[in-house]
């Protein structure tokens, strides 16, 4: 696959506050790449560097082999869909979409043709003469996409474009965006803090925090093989426990030794153990590898979310079976439910659900003692 953008050792700070700390990233042609991370992690700044609205303090932005650090936005073959769409209120739908073509002095009849095509691509045919302010959020979103695509950029940058939409509309637009990307074959660089969005749409997910990239991978890799406690916690729900490797494929945590699928760690090396809540089986006390007390139960629709106290560590478990608060249950883990990570600076920061409800905890403890 062809590399379209390379970011080499990029650093950037605002008013002495470092925002990006040595970013290296390759982006390939035809790829749907998502920059995912909590707000303030630097993902929008990275996008603006590619768009040309910021210049890096150090490092290089390379576009098809050319360093473009100092190329202004209007000379980059890259377009952006802004967070709040940034549609031009004094122009109607047609004129907004036609704007880049008019700037390029494209002939009138060609403009007419291309705008009509583009509006049908984003399902807005018949809206040509409408005023921007009379459109719904979803419609404005699609005008913004049409406007950004009509100049046939090689890369489309999307800065949290779905953030302002309500849940239902967001789901629809996710599907639609993916469809448009497939149809046009343009590289999409998508910024979001919503991990579900990132997983469902992307070819590649880049997880960032505090100006650094933690992990680059497919959604499945990122979910199943998180590289550290931060990623494990940020992507989905995770129980992260302290453990140590006995040998390849054998790990000890919660006072028990389990079979697992990981290898290559040193003897007795301390590790972080990740167990996804949906991978935990609830069984009877006798069958369980570990035993615990249910401290809270929340009905979530598809499943229950329950918190189980196992020797002071609170597990989150998602199950379709109903258990009651106060019930003593057994927990069983299959080897493929267990993922081992090296210790990192993020260890012990995430993965314990005891903060979920202290009040409930005390009440349950009282009961247990009685």
């Amino acid at each position, binding site marked *: 696959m062809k590399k379209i953008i390379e970011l080499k050792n990029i650093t950037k700070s605002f008013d002495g506050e470092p925002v990006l700390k040595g970013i290296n990233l390759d982006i390939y042609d035809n790829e749907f790449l998502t920059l995912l991370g909590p707000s303030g992690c630097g993902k929008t700044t990275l996008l603006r560097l590619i768009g040309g609205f910021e210049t890096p303090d150090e490092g290089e932005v390379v576009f098809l082999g050319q360093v473009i650090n100092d190329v202004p936005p*209007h000379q980059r073959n*890259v377009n952006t869909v802004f967070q709040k769409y940034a549609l031009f209120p004094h122009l109607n739908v047609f004129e907004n979409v036609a704007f880049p073509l008019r700037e390029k002095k494209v002939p009138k009849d060609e403009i007419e043709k291309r705008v009509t095509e583009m509006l049908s691509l984003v399902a807005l045919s018949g809206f040509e003469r409408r005023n921007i302010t009379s459109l719904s959020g979803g419609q404005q979103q699609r005008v913004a996409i049409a406007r950004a695509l009509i*100049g046939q950029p090689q890369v489309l940058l999307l800065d949290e474009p779905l953030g302002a939409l309500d849940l239902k509309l967001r789901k629809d637009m996710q599907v639609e965006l993916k469809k448009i990307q497939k149809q046009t074959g343009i590289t999409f660089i998508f910024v979001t803090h919503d991990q579900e969005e990132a997983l469902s749409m992307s070819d590649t997910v880049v997880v960032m925090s505090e100006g650094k990239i933690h992990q680059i991978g497919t959604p499945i890799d990122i979910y199943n093989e998180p590289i550290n406690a931060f990623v494990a916690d940020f992507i989905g729900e995770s129980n992260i426990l302290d453990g140590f490797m006995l040998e390849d494929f054998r790990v000890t945590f919660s006072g028990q030794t389990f079979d697992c699928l990981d290898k290559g760690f040193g003897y007795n090396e301390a590790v972080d153990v990740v167990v996804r809540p949906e991978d935990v089986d609830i069984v009877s006390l006798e069958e369980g590898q570990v035993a615990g007390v249910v401290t809270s139960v929340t009905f979530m629709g598809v499943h229950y979310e329950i918190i189980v106290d196992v020797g002071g560590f609170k597990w989150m478990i998602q199950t379709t079976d109903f258990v009651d608060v106060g019930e003593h249950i057994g927990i069983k883990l299959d080897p493929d439910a267990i993922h081992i990570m090296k210790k990192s600076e993020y260890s012990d920061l995430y993965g314990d659900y005891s903060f979920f409800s202290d009040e409930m905890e005390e009440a349950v403890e009282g009961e247990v003692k009685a």
Partner: protein
Amino acid sequence: MRPIAKVYTALIFLFLFAPIAILLVFSFNSGNSLSVFSGFSLHWYQELLHDTNTLGALKNTLILALSASILSTILGTAAAVGINKLRSRTMRSAMNTVTNIPMVNPDIITGISLMLLFVFAGRLMGLGTSLNFWTMLIAHITFCLPYVILQVLPKLRQMDKSLPEAAMDLGCTPMRAFLKVELPEIMPGVLTGLIMAFTLSLDDFVISYFTAGNGFETLPIRIYSMTKKTVTPKMYALATLIFFAILALLIISNLMDEETAQERRLAKAKRKKERKPLSPQAKRTLALSVLGGAAVLALAVSFAGRAQQLELNVYNWGEYISDGSEGSLDTIKAFEKWYEEEYGQKIRVNYSTYASNEDMYAKLKSGSVSYDVIVPSDYMIARLIAEDMLLPLDYDNIPNYKYIGEQFRGLYYDPNDEYTVPYTYGVVGIIYNANQVDEADIGDWDLMWNPKYAGRILQFNNSRDAFGTAMYKLGIDVNTGDKAQWDQALAELQAQRPMIKAYVMDEIFNAMESGEADIGAYYAGDYFTMADAQADSVDLQFYYPPATNYFFDSMCIPSCAQHKELAEIFIDYMLSEEAAIANAEYIYYACPNALVYESEDYIDEMGEEAMEILYPPMDDFKERYNSYAYQNLSDDILSYMNELWESLKIN
């Protein structure tokens, strides 16, 4: 509560709009009284159309307002964009405060400081005269700028910051992004700023007054300087027209605001219904046409009249020259035409006006202007000569000087006839309502002290003139240096005070015309203006007390003059029969020119009664003048007099 609230609202509106309503009504008055509406007529509007001086001032005002508003809008918008881009909060609020200073600063201080700056800069650059159209323009831009910034800044703040970025992303250079996207967004603010700047510049008096150069007179300055005589009703007509023009601008600007507000509401409601895309387009067209029109006008104006030609700067009292109204001769125009025919060269007279000798003196003293001809009064001439501020005249260039009557030469202020050519003179007399005042009581100043008419007497609201009445009455020299005699006069004024209806200047016209007061002292020429406009129940008559005040206004050339010879030609032309008669008939004061007072046409035109009053017997004119006219008082006596005057007015 409700009816009370309504009444209250009605009262507020009455309070706000009654003055304008009165102005409007009296602009259609067929007579020239301010108190009696004698019938509907467009007379004053016609008069206005023929008053080339006022129209010239109006044109100047419009040129200035247009250029100032357009330039300040461009500069202000750029400044607002800059301020908005500042990242640091403290910097931004600091910039805001600094730009707002000219707005909160009192006009008078802005005016004085700007004048100082221009004079100072002019001296540094070695220019003789530093005040001109351009300084006035700079001054106007200075005070308009903050208003523009104040209008544009909020629009920039409201605007989505990513709009210009989006434009650049879609292929615009930063400049094009501003023009194509940012500017349309902030256009309502820019236009409101433009309109505000225009109206502010249009009616500014104080700052203009300090920064005006010679020959560029704006309307507010012209109207102000009319206060020597009364403001004529054609000014009501002009004011009415301006009021409606401004009203129209205001309505346009409000409509535009209304439109944006409506858009915002629509956006909020997220209306799905199709809406005619009229407003943005219409707004843009309107904005462009306003700006375009204004720019074209400004360009046309700046190129008009730039051809190299002679210029003469004349500085005279307001309404003190025949200006072409009511079929009279436009003396200035006539001079320009005559000069071109005579000398084969175009000349332009820059004519501007002042309201008092002191105003004129201050302007000359500032050293920032250059006038070629001025028309000060006698005591001021004495002062100017003493301070070496006048040039001796070359009477060979003023052959018509020979028509100045013998008795009007060698007057005290210019005993050897070196500096002056008399223009007009006048004598103070007493005006009374014969329907109320007993014939037996008239004849001397005593009438103004007669307890029979207590509460019906008007006294000058001006220290020198008021003291004058008392001193003539007591037989004291009005130029005395003896403080005891001033005390004596004060006592006389104090005795009179309980009988006085009011201390007045221009208000005397209305008070006498309407019969509100029965006795007052004023100039003979003005008596006719009052008699013309008197109400039916009033019969105004006039007499001279034996000792009374005489004044002379004479044409002089100040030492700052740059075209002395031209000035002498101008003065000579003013003495020619045609110009002198036209001026005398217009001004209605006595004229010392034999070509006038011996002219059959003039005497016919004025009538016997007027001639008798305007030109009282003249055998001992010079002696009387030299002993009764006001002379320059020493600083000590002047401040003593003013102290006494204050004590009179306060107690």
